[in-house]
């Protein structure tokens, strides 16, 4: 499957930075626009820099600007993690960092140049009340104000409503598990918490990073259940980068399939591995795929789904979102909702959201 537009594709250049050598100005234009839209501009800048490729001409300031922004964001994330330690340290519970924050704090290559917005943490569900009140004491407030939104998150979701800091404006997502409570797969967050490791950094004794296998499993689970795929290529790039580096460790692939299978996530992980292999060409052992593979009928639907994702994740330049991509995006959006909630909850929920958007309640700043 060719993903190239005007003979250039951000995925090819991420995989092989030398492909950027000798590009014309207009090709650089396309590459930068694709990378920006996929939220991969910082990662692309970091990859080219690491490969020692000197970018000359106007593309350089776009790549350099994104790298600079990512450095600033990483500094701000580190600061926030110290604030979290200060707010939650005395509760004596493990506070796991997920996704971007975990990559930055563990100084893994996957974090290089990565741009992100929110900080995601995972805490034991029993401690949720204490965590939330400590965070409120330290200046974080709930960003969702309507009673319905509050109930939606608290009863059905895997996280409490996003909190933002009053002064610093940073947004924090506090998770107690990794998938909505109403979804079909029911992973046990305890397993992930028990396998997590403390940071080596002094002064951050409450902070934990999931083990490499769980980092991959969570990233894949998130991608496969996510309805809006605007960060899909970025997330796949994270997964590719982790697999290429963790995959070399002895026993990694065995542990990956054991942890995924043991936590009701065999199917999503199997699908995610197929997808990253097809889009990024990531080396994945056949034996791992075979171990995680579902039976006949599910395999059929997985093939369909892979086609849908590949279409939806096609890097787009300035304009070229065609009908197939649009349809694929819509189908995946619908699918994510069907995965998230059973029909008898989903239909009233979507009707309610549509009503709230059309007729926003007075005095509430939300759409």
């Amino acid at each position: 499957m060719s993903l190239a537009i005007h003979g250039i594709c951000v995925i090819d250049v991420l995989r092989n930075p030398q492909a950027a050598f000798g590009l014309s100005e207009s090709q650089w234009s396309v590459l930068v626009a694709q990378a920006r839209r996929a939220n991969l501009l910082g990662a692309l800048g970091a990859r080219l820099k690491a490969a020692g490729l000197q970018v000359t001409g106007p593309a350089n300031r776009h790549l350099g600007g994104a790298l600079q922004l990512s450095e600033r964001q990483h500094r701000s994330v580190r600061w926030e993690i110290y604030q979290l330690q200060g707010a939650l340290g005395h509760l004596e519970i493990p506070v796991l960092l997920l996704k971007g924050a975990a990559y930055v704090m563990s100084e893994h290559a996957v974090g290089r140049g990565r741009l992100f917005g929110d900080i995601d943490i995972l805490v034991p569900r029993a401690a949720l009340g204490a965590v939330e009140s400590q965070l409120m004491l330290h200046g974080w407030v709930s960003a969702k104000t309507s009673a319905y939104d509050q109930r939606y998150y608290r009863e059905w979701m895997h996280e409490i409503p996003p909190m933002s800091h009053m002064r610093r404006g940073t947004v924090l997502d506090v998770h107690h598990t990794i998938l909505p409570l109403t979804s079909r797969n029911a992973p046990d967050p305890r397993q992930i918490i028990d396998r997590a490791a403390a940071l080596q950094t002094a002064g951050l004794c409450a902070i934990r990073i999931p083990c490499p296998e769980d980092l991959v499993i969570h990233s894949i689970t998130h991608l496969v259940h996510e309805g809006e795929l605007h960060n899909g290529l970025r997330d796949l790039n994270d997964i590719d980068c982790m697999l290429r580096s963790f995959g070399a460790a002895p026993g990694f692939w065995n542990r990956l399939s054991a942890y995924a299978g043991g936590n009701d996530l065999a199917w999503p992980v199997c699908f995610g591995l197929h997808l990253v292999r097809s889009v990024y060409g990531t080396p994945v052992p056949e034996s791992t795929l075979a171990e995680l593979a579902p039976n006949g009928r599910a395999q059929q639907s997985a093939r369909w789904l892979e086609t849908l994702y590949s279409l939806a994740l096609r890097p787009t330049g300035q304009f070229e979102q065609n009908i197939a991509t649009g349809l694929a995006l819509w189908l995946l959006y619908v699918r994510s909702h069907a995965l998230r909630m059973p029909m008898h909850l989903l239909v009233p929920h979507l009707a309610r959201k549509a009503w709230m958007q059309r007729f926003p309640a007075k005095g509430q700043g939300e759409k």
Partner: protein
Amino acid sequence: MPSKQRSRLIDTILHIPPFNVRVRSPFAEVARHLDYFYTSYQRYGPDAFIDFDVQVLHGKGVRRWWRPQVRFLLDAAESFFPLPAQQAAPMFEWGLNWCIATRPLGYLVMHAGLLALDDRALMMPGIPGAGKSTLSASLCLLEGWRLLSDELAILDPKSGQMLPHPRPISLKNASIDIVTGFPQARIGTVYHDTRKGTISHAACPPDSVAASSTGARVRWVVFPRFELDSASSCEELSRAEAFALISEQSFNRERMGEVGFDALCSMLTDARCFQIVYGSTSAGLQLIRDITLS
């Protein structure tokens, strides 16, 4: 009218230093605006690099005809509320300002008028209404200064140079009449009832456009404050005070982290900083002459 608008569809890559801007629009008003203010700017073919891919489009659905609107898109994404269609050309100017202020390109972008004598630059940061556009227009149209920008001062941290970004000068309310009276002034269409009141634009002087590849270093920072009929006053500020005041008028210093901080510090190293209060344009010009000739 719609058929005439369609026949004038613009799709061009304009070099508005230091950027290449692709402009697409079906609006005749935008075409006229570009013809009037950007004639001498270089235009490129499809082989050029594009820094900002901009579209100025009709409103969606019934808003195409009923109380027609205009939308501004960067990279095919819409980040503003639409405006009445008559304001298509001002929306292009405002939208482009927003593009430059928000996209991280490694430049420190400040809200300030910027002029130069040779390679010595005068920077006038200020809140809207402080008079920086009127003073900028007066300095370049009456006093022979080179205009780098009336609104966006762009600092390149690598070279320490201010980069010229010549665009039409945006004029508001009373300043339109003042600048229209200048002998060299070329004033465009007047737009009434915008969110900034009555607005118009004055063309950037041709010499300034021609010299747009030449940067300058900040020698003077002047914070102007216009108070009708007040007596002139001038007070020198410490660099620390100036740093704090400019930071308030910077769009992206915070986001640029350490690089932005260092760039602003070194910009101020060679500069003297003043706060002026003036009651008329001629009094303001006299204060600036006193500062820059001393």
